[in-house]
């Protein structure tokens, strides 16, 4: 299948299809940014044999009146995105064994959502 990642194991090969890779990356990105996997668009590209990821996603933010002080405790949207970008790179590499050339995160919007009540 085109776009799949193949690894040679002692008795055969492991192949991860583009579909499986896309879904896994969208789940990792969704976890990192607090959105649903279905809201994340993932593009896989080849970078000289390595895997290049482009993730298009909204980010979950708190409404202004819920902010305490100037910036939320876990950082600005840009800080969180940068952390998410590192998380995506690390987690996807760990889960798939793929050699990742780069991860591009594009924020396509912001989802206002109140934090879930812990009870």
């Amino acid at each position, binding site marked *: 299948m085109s776009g799949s990642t193949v690894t040679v194991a002692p008795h*055969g090969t*492991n192949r991860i299809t583009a579909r499986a890779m896309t879904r896994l990356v969208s789940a990792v990105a969704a976890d990192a940014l607090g959105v649903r996997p279905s809201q994340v668009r993932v593009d896989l590209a080849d970078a000289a044999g390595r895997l290049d990821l482009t993730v298009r996603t909204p980010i979950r933010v708190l409404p202004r009146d819920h902010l305490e002080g100037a910036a939320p405790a876990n950082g600005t949207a840009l800080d969180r995105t940068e952390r998410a970008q590192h998380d995506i790179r690390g987690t996807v590499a760990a889960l798939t064994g793929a050699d990742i050339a780069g991860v591009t995160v594009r924020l396509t919007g912001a989802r206002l959502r109140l934090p879930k009540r812990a009870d």
Partner: protein
Amino acid sequence: MTSITPDIGSHGTDLPAGTPRGTTVINDAVVAKVAGLALREVTGVHAVGGGAARALGAIREAISSTDHSQGVSVTVTGPLVAVELSIVAEYPLPLQQVADDARTAIINAIETLVGLEVTEVNVTINDVHLPDEADDTGEVPHP
């Protein structure tokens, strides 16, 4: 295709030692079924087969005749078996580990239960199942 193993006659009185008293024929479908059943024990294998095979499988299951060899294709050449396997892995388990575990389970099952030697098991992970997603068979995901 089938594999034929010469059955060595056991201490026959009127036969010289080592003369075969017939042949054991193991059909490919049996090898595929043994492999398919072995996968049920493997952690991280959510389903076996590609999209179309799983859709057909859901219908088969509804009329209570599960195809255990779904998603497993075997090629038997004499005493050697090559297996092609297509699975859906559970998120967030390492995919290489799931594939390796599936391979080990299949090799063990075929070599111990069928007695044929496995040359290779090529595993394709065709999809990843996300736990918070509704199951595509329509059943409620397990907590």
